């Protein structure tokens, strides 16, 4: 047996994230004792109608979220307990709602910093209704082998170490949340473990005090002794002493009280929990409390350290008198399934990676590009073209190469609003579409006829150079196998109206005294083709392609230089339209050659 929480306890949790975390801990306990999840519902108005997915073993349990306690208990009439994880300013309302629901018999409030007045009103209301209000600031309640309410008991491993999977003979009542676990652990090591452990909260006026719980333990035949961890301040320990001393009690009482250090502290200095304040007239000191408990017949170890041996002695007496028997430990306990990360850390599982990367890694405190930390690149004077080199070709390019790339980017960043890409972006922007979609609308225009010839131009010029083809052989090869030469030809520019961008780029590269076999070949091709037709000149795509191949970039990366550069322009066009708050546009009829058949009669459907 146990008190307050048992096999028949079903729970609604009031609150958000903290409540969900508690539910996870409770699910771990349920899994350990092979009980289905005892959290049946959440009440959290912002998420009402959704579910919280709570891991249970290796699966997930969907727990519904309701707007009100009434809805929760209507849908799950087994609910008899509520845990309150609502913020201090709304906790009182939530606690009242739970207490006033006829299904709910126990309300435990975890919220800290609840006004004292609110806590007193909740406590008084519960007593009037004959219900239990535990807390505020409670760490929770746990009955070994049957029910956990809240995070009390800690991590799964600790539940096992503290033998919370089966009943012992010791009840525990503490104000301190941290010490509750310590006492549960001590009871499991120096004795046979606990029946129920209750965190009553460290506030000045806990909703339910030691005496009420002592009475419950006294009436629980499984509980043979109760351990109280007290604190200076208030009179809860004195009241417990008074109760214990009032008549012969079946249960042994073991108690420690903290706050002796107060005696040697500077006057007026106080610390610890909110409730740990000595009374204004000096009552409630650790010494007066422990004296009262001793006088009432409780076992009061001199220090916290002596608690373990005291519990052991009490347990040995219980064994000797036959009131308890040595517990039988279960042969096998469920093991909590590990997450992939935990299992990998423990070298228990091997996972085949889904993707492989060779260029970057941002798992540390900053991204590394091909192994080089971004900040170090910045501080050592590297620039955007070097990052392009690292991420596209996995090499640190030279200053000179970087300068070439920079110039290519500057020359290709934009080409006015009329070209396919910019027009696509502008139309989208005018239709009110967002930046990434509008820019994408422009980018998808890049292909064989617009800006997308760089890769192919590079590929064929390189083929010719690698295979030492003459210009004539090359043109013959292209005519036979490919068609028009990518990188050659322009819609408006010609020999007489040359493309200044090409001139600029060729002039710069030529001034550098580097080997440019591809560029040389491309210029040789232009010489032949432009004689045949005035506009068959080396265009900017072809020039970029030849230069980039010459400085070592792989053919497959070449279109990227145009895409990257032009993205700058496309973003500019989108922002430009946005700034002007441009209206939706459509083509004028006179810009369309309507070549469809004239209006005619629709024949009857056959």
């Amino acid at each position: 047996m146990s008190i307050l929480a048992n096999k028949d306890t079903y729970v609604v949790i009031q609150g958000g994230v903290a409540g969900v975390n508690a539910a996870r801990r409770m699910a771990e306990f349920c899994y350990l004792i092979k009980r289905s999840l005892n959290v049946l519902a959440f009440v959290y108005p912002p998420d009402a109608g959704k579910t919280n997915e709570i891991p249970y073993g290796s699966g997930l349990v969907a727990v519904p979220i309701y707007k009100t306690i009434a809805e929760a208990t209507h849908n799950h009439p087994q609910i008899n307990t509520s845990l309150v994880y609502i913020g201090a300013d709304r906790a009182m309302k939530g606690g009242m709602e739970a207490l006033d629901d006829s299904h709910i018999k126990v309300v435990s409030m975890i919220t800290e910093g609840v006004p004292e007045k609110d806590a007193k009103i909740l406590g008084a209301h519960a007593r009037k209704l004959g219900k239990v209000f535990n807390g505020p600031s409670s760490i929770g309640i746990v009955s070994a082998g049957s029910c956990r309410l809240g995070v009390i008991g800690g991590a799964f491993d600790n539940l096992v170490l503290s033998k919370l999977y089966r009943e012992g003979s010791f009840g525990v009542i503490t104000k301190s949340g941290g010490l509750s676990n310590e006492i549960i652990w001590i009871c499991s090591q120096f004795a046979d473990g606990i029946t129920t452990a209750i965190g009553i909260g460290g506030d000045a006026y806990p909703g339910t005090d030691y005496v009420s719980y002592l009475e419950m333990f006294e009436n629980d035949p499984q509980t043979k002794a109760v351990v109280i961890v007290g604190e200076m301040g208030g009179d809860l320990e004195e009241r417990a002493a008074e109760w214990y001393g009032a008549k012969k009690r079946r249960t042994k009482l073991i108690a420690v009280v903290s706050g002796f250090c107060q005696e040697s502290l500077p006057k007026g200095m106080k610390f610890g929990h909110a409730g740990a304040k000595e009374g204004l007239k000096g009552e409630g000191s650790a010494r007066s409390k422990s004296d009262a408990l001793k006088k009432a017949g409780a076992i009061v170890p001199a220090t916290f350290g002596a608690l373990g041996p005291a519990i052991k002695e009490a347990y040995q007496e219980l064994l000797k008198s036959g009131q308890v028997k040595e517990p039988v430990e279960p042969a096998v306990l469920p093991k909590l399934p590990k997450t992939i990360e935990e299992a990998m850390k423990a070298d228990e599982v091997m996972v085949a990676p889904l993707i492989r990367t060779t260029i970057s890694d941002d798992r540390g405190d900053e991204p590394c590009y091909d192994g080089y930390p971004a900040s170090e690149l910045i501080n050592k004077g590297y620039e955007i073209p070097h990052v392009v080199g690292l991420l596209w070709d996995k090499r640190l390019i030279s200053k000179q190469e970087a300068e070439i790339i920079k110039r290519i980017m500057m020359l290709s960043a934009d080409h006015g609003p009329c070209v396919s890409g910019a027009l696509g972006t502008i139309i989208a922007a005018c239709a009110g579409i967002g930046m990434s979609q509008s820019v994408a609308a422009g980018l998808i225009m890049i292909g064989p006829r617009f800006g997308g010839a760089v890769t192919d131009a590079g590929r064929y010029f390189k083929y010719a150079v690698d295979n030492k083809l003459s210009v004539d052989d090359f043109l013959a090869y292209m005519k036979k196998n490919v068609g028009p030469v990518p990188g050659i030809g322009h819609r408006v520019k010609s020999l007489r109206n040359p493309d200044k961008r090409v001139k600029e780029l060729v002039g710069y590269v030529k001034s550098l005294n580097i080997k440019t076999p591809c560029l040389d070949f491309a210029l040789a091709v232009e010489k032949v083709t432009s004689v045949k037709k005035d506009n068959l000149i080396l265009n900017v795509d072809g020039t970029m392609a030849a230069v980039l191949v010459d400085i070592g970039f792989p053919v497959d990366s070449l279109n990227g230089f145009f895409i990257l550069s032009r993205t700058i322009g496309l973003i500019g066009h989108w922002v430009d339209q946005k700034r002007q708050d441009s209206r939706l546009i459509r083509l004028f009829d006179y810009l369309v050659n309507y070549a469809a058949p004239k209006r005619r009669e629709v024949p009857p459907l056959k």
Partner: protein
Amino acid sequence: MAKVLEGPGMGLMKKWGITVPHYVVVTSVDELTRLGQANEWLKKSKLVVKAHEALGSRFKLGLVKVNLDLPAAEAATKEMIGRLVGSITVSQVIVSEMIPHKEEYYCAVKSTREGTDVLVANCGGIEVESNWDRVKRLALEVGQQPAAEAFERLAKDAGFTGSLVKKMADFAGKMFACFDNEDAQYLEVNPVVLREQDSELIALDAVTLLDGDAKFRHPDWNFAFAAEFGRAYSRHEMEVMAVDSKIKGSVKFIEIPGGDTAMLPAGGGASVYYSDAVVARGGKLANYAEYSGDPPDWAVEVLTDKVCSLPGIKNIIVGGAIANFTDVKKTFGGIINGFRKAQSEGKLKGVKIWVRRGGPREKEGLDAMRALKNEGFDINVFDRNTPLTDIVDMALQK
């Protein structure tokens, strides 16, 4: 509990209809002079000047001056402002009118587990301390709103007669209203005096303790709470408080001058047991500290930094029970960073560190602490199998 100084405390009483003497809180003589020109009472009444700080025994310290006219009050103000008392510099004084009276009474309201006690006595001042049996009590249940007759019975019970019964009942009723509506935890007026000129009851001196947790529903609490120790908070204490106010979980730090055992334990409950153990072993605490509720590691690092900066420490007790949900690895990470920083600043020379802890990721956390040995720290690390406060016994073994 949050202590409130006299000025704001009297303000709250006035709000609930309790008559208080005229008063002003000033930070300079000029301010008082200016107010003196605008307020008749400052010119006409005899005045009391008191240092408006959280200081005990102000009478003994000469920080209360009575029976002054305005020029004398200005002189007293000039003398008090800027005076350094312990670690507190007097920055404000409260100047109030003296109330000519013959009779002094007592009235207090305090929180009890069952509800509220209203206390009344027909003696006041220091007399009430030695005549505690004359203090009569009206015990009210939680939520109970007593009728006027209940207060009248209390006043009669305390020995008031004639027209004073109704006056005292009325006064106590207003005290209760103030207590109940202002989320007070303790209100005491001693003495309540009977003003000679109009026989009205006046609250002459008041102690006001409010529930700091209820601040969210009192937008008019525009005053700061006073330190409860009778001394100002130190810079390090205030820095930790500033961190505490903006994190999930909590970090707490109080300095105790002259100690040599520094405390860095986890948990509001365990931390006091650790302090008890130090005192029981004859050690001298250099501070109180505590972190709990799974605080972020950087907050624990700030706390560690302050602990390591305590002067003259020989041991640091990094104690803790078996945590429920505080991540031991993460919070220890903050402590370790703090230790490393302190070491690089030349602190922690000859300081022994003692660690005991359990809870989520305890193994990883304790292993990380143990590894500090390789970095030249004098550190001893124990797990849950060593009882809670044994590290204090080991640290303080002669």
